């Protein structure tokens, strides 16, 4: 069964018609990378799935359940976790409280020990205000919060933006582990082409609010899709 199935999705900001009949599926346990130039509609797509765009039309199902009538919070409780670019953490709450916000919100949260087992780096910071951590540490807290929600679909909008190179690789590892070991489906918007190719099992290209091409990490390199759709010449070797 598809974790996420989107059909004919359209979204507007005022008079700007951003998504123009977009179709997309994400299979269970699949890690899908969404590549596109600035303004193509990547962030709008994620926000539309979370119902954070003023006007959206089209169908969205999560594991076969139609979620178009649900509000943002109900979609989250249905199993979607969203790491946006703008707000990573609740800055004045401690790291433990950031995680507790999620633990209290869902019916069956993942135990803290399990979360810390995968993201051990935050263990020593549990009592610190999350706003005082580095950008990379805040991303790990955001990942821990999403993991605590026991999400079935994880959507991430440029999780490595402003993050130290060492942590970029670590975030990639965690994404792969969540998909492989916990069966979480992932929809990843990422400007870091290397991480996208290494972490994803499938790549989709978005232009003018529509999916225009797709392939495996290997095929998008070998067939020149990166150069055609992003203007990027890459020597990055995708993970086998």
């Amino acid at each position, binding site marked *: 069964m598809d974790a996420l199935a989107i059909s004919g999705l359209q979204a507007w900001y005022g008079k700007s018609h951003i998504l123009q009949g977009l179709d997309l599926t994400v299979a269970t346990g699949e890690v899908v990378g969404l590549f596109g130039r600035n303004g193509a509609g990547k962030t709008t797509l994620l926000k539309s799935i979370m119902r954070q765009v003023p006007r959206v039309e089209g169908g969205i199902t999560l594991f076969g359940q139609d979620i178009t009538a649900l509000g943002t919070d109900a979609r989250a409780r249905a199993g979607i976790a969203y790491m946006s670019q*703008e707000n990573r953490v609740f800055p004045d709450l401690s790291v433990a409280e950031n995680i507790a916000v999620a633990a209290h919100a869902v019916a069956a949260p993942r135990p803290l020990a399990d979360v810390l087992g995968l993201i051990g780096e935050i263990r020593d910071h549990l009592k610190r205000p999350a706003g005082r951590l580095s950008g990379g540490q805040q991303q790990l807290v955001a990942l821990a919060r999403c993991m605590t929600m026991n999400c079935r679909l994880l959507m991430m909008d440029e999780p490595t933006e402003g993050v130290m190179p060492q942590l970029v690789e670590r975030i990639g590892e965690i994404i792969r582990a969540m998909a492989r070991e916990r069966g979480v489906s992932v929809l990843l918007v990422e400007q870091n082409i290397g991480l996208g190719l290494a972490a994803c099992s499938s790549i989709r290209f978005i232009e003018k609010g529509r999916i225009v091409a797709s392939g495996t990490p290997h095929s998008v390199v070998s067939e020149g899709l990166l150069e055609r759709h992003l203007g990027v010449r890459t020597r990055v070797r995708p993970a086998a």
Partner: protein
Amino acid sequence: MEGPALVAFQMLNGLVWGLLLALISLGLCLIYGLMRINNLAHGSLFMLGAMLTAWGCNSLEMPLWLATPAAAIAVAVLMLLLDTVLFSRVAGRDMTVGLLATAGLLLIIDNTVLAVFGGEPASVDPPVEDAVALFGLYYPAYRLLAAGIAIAVLLAVWAFLRFSRYGLWMRAVPQARELAASTGVPIARVNLVTVALGGLTAGLAGALATPITGAHFQMGLAILAPSFIVVVVGGLGNIAGTVTMAIVYGLIRGGFSVVMTPTWAEAVTLLALLPLLYFRPDGLFGGR
């Protein structure tokens, strides 16, 4: 009364007043922090708590210990209804919409109270008439009791915000509303709890004040300016700052009351605090 005894008396009065003001301003601060609504009708909730207490004691012959919580709960229930028909509809919209909507609500509440209870001031005898020897003077025991109840309720609200699930959410939502929603926090229910809590504390302050000041349908207007000034000077949305500032406000007002009438003391205290906003526009303790 004169000299140190007068100073002690007025400062104690100021402290009691500051604690009641803290109860009122707390709800104003919570509602602003969570819903970005400047609730101009908040003083009317205080007035409603007082009028219902006076009505319960004088017309229904309820004892004050029963009329006080009953009035506070009645105001909280009213706020639950108002959340559905008003607050949830203006939350997140332009701030002017909230100001206009709550200004209308103020007029509706005040005029309804005038129509139902009349314009004559009502009074209620304090349940304890004794005075307590304190700092070389005899201070009315009921005022100390009211201050004690206010402190207990403020501590209970602090514990609720610090340790309960809804308290955690009420602290999280003002920091990042969209993040809270996408984490699964039921925003509408959090708003509901916040509005009800604001009504409960304002109504309770009115009920506790009734044996001290009496009750009158326009007393909500008088409390509005001090409530807003402590919320703003305390730091918009900053709960600890607001409560601290309310108590400081009461003490300053008590100090001025030594050398001038209470009405002048109120006006001078407001004027004394306004320049602070020029130097610290986000309030003394920073906004949220």
